[in-house]
């Protein structure tokens, strides 16, 4: 079987059949021009081409997309974002409007069909005072149909403070009946809960996000200084972090918020709360950022940038930080629900946001005693919304973290 022939070393340009696309040198004489042997000899598929030019964010998005739960949560989050931006549009009443006579109206259930046709309506309510307890008893009057429509006219407001309009998402068809639609009932002061909820969403979610942003800024800067420069700055900042982390959070929060003067306007209180929440929240992120900087300092690509002559600022901003921005965003998203729950709890105790400001916690204050709850259980709905918001943020944050961290699985 051996058909060995004497030394058949081929000069260049031999007759051994070659693949036409192959430009690589023939054994054994290698060429001296810039070698082409770095070429991919396999034709690259379109899929591979797409992947090869995909930036990290694109890859993260592709991975995130596969997670159905996270995608669904993102949709809900986007909806909540819309509510944050345009609460007046979603509301049906002016949230401040009080009328003690309209207290504790129950939820008017929406009937979708009217004589077989799709024509949503809510029944009217009629109030009667109970002769014994002198409480107002509300009875739904099915005969009185208040038809609903989208983009109904209602109280006028300025969209984003700029555009004057009076349209709302949902309202009564007949403008005269606009005042009779209580989608989530009223509280003890006769305020429409649905409208208050939309405004509360705005306050509660923005407090959460702003305090997280503050934490991130603080954490990045201090953690970065700590990790990149080391030495004394590192020592001081680390001891500060340890100090802050060893303080019991709940008493500190309670003390700080209780110390806020009662005379402060809601806006001032708002900003004070965000700062108080951020003061404790930056420490965890700072530690992580420091760790990243410490390990990144040893990476070859950072040394390569230094050897090119790049300034330290450029190295930090353009070379180091981009490698973990996706991680920061993921952890921040997971930190927001913590802030939301904290603010809700503080306000619920009367220490955070106070009336006339509206937040979920403030709304839940109304549901503090059993008697009220027995009478008007719908006052707890803000709690459900808190749960929904926290759940949604956590799912999105988890999905982001899994998508951003390729080593998690």
């Amino acid at each position, binding site marked *: 079987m051996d058909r060995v*022939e004497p030394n058949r*070393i081929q000069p260049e340009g031999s007759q051994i*059949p070659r693949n036409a696309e*192959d430009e*690589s040198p023939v054994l054994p004489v290698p060429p001296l021009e810039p070698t082409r042997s770095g070429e991919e000899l*396999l034709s690259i*598929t379109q899929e591979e081409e797409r992947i090869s030019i995909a930036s990290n964010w694109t890859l993260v998005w592709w991975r995130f997309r596969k997670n159905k739960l996270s995608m669904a949560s993102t949709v809900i989050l986007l909806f909540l974002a819309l509510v944050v931006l345009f609460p007046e549009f979603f509301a049906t009443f002016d949230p401040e409007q009080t009328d003690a006579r309209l207290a504790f109206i129950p939820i008017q259930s929406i009937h979708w069909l009217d004589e077989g046709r799709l024509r949503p309506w809510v029944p009217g309510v009629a109030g009667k005072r109970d002769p014994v307890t002198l409480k107002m008893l509300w009875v739904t009057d099915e005969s009185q149909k208040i038809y609903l429509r989208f983009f109904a006219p209602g109280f006028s407001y300025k969209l984003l403070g700029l555009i004057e309009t009076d349209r709302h998402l949902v309202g009564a068809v007949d403008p005269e009946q606009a005042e009779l639609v209580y989608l989530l009932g009223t509280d003890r002061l006769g305020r429409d809960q649905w409208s208050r909820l939309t405004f509360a969403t705005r306050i509660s979610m923005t407090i959460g996000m702003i305090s997280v942003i503050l934490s991130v800024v603080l954490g990045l800067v201090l953690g970065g200084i700590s990790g990149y420069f080391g030495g004394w700055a590192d020592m001081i900042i680390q001891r500060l972090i340890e100090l802050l982390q060893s303080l019991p959070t709940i008493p500190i929060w309670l003390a700080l918020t209780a110390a806020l003067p009662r005379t402060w306007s809601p806006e001032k209180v708002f900003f004070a709360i965000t700062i108080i929440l951020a003061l404790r929240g930056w420490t965890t992120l700072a530690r992580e950022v420091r760790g990243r900087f410490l390990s990144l300092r040893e990476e070859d690509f950072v040394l390569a940038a230094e050897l090119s002559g790049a300034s330290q600022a450029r190295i930090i901003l353009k070379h180091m930080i981009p490698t973990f921005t996706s991680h920061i965003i993921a952890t921040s998203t997971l930190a927001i629900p913590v802030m939301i729950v904290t603010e809700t709890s503080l306000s619920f105790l009367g220490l955070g946001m106070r009336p006339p400001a509206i937040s979920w916690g403030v709304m839940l204050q109304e549901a503090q005693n059993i008697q009220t709850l027995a009478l008007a259980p719908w006052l707890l709905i803000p709690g459900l919304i808190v749960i929904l918001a926290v759940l949604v943020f956590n799912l999105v944050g988890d999905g982001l973290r899994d998508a951003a961290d390729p080593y998690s699985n």
Partner: protein
Amino acid sequence: MSTSVEPVTQSNTAPWSHEPLLKVEDLKAYFFMDEGTVKAVDGVSFDVFPGKVVGIVGESGCGKSVTMKAILQILDPSARIVSGKVTLRSRLNSQDPNSLEELVDLTRLHPNSRKIRKIRGSEIALIPQEPMAAFSPVHTVGNQIMETILLHQDVSKQQARQIAIDVFRSVGISMPEQRIDAYSWELSGGLRQRAIIAMALSCNPRLLIADEPTTAIDVTTQAQILKLLRRLQEERQTSIIFITHDLGVIAQMADEVVVMYLGMVMEKGPVQAIFKNARHPYTQALLRSIPSVQSTPRLKLPTIAGSIAHPFNRPAGCPFHPRCTHFMRGVCDASQPGLIRVAEDHFVSCFLYSPESTQPAIPSTEKSL
């Protein structure tokens, strides 16, 4: 019941004394991932005879490590043996050299089964690549070796300790009585490597699988370890499957060589045949492209064109064809050549050597006399 380490003799009462100790037949192990299926090992066959060293050589992606894991049934959860047989001449009593044997197909055993756990450590032992990672940092090395001994041998704790000390001495660790109570991070690189070898040998396995045992250590320490392995192998007549990418080490250690590429065997045969008379274009090109301390300085090396394909994109037909200078269109990309015998014990997987091939054979690498 033996309590000390003694050389293993071949059992003459076994009906299969001329059979290989380990026979791998057409082993296929695939990784099933979201992005697709990776055919990491796709039809690998070779034999390991008692007392012989088989060197498996290949570059990244060739599947040599996955083959080893498949044999020991320690594959990743996402991987599975799809087909093939791995037959071991297993002793009923692993510590008794005169024990009766039975043929066991390792692929049929569940990774967590008692049977495979009995085999691991006492009949087939692994010398892993990274000794630091292989030892637990919170247990002394003696502790870990004794654990293996107590698992497979019917001895008391004191006896196990003595066995561990003896095996430490046999791998050349000085002051074994003290060293046995050291933690792995207290030992230097070379000592750790010896300790790992000691742990592998502690239960007198007939087959050692060494997975790149010298890649992470210095060249002078490597020379010591290779010498040690050679000596131990001769003393105990242990078979070794030596996995590496270093052709120099293969030439020094192996009796037989298996050359793998992208999950398949390209060529296998006695070490002399592979180095002096390589037939497969890949083997030939590989041998020519490595720098050696004996070659002339600053002479350009002949290279293999292109780079190793991504395992997801394995080429159709012969996996090497896109880089092969003897590529035959329509033949090499159409189907896979099986292993073709070109000499006694020397097999090549290349269409150039199939009986129907009309191409002239490529020149052997035999030195002109």
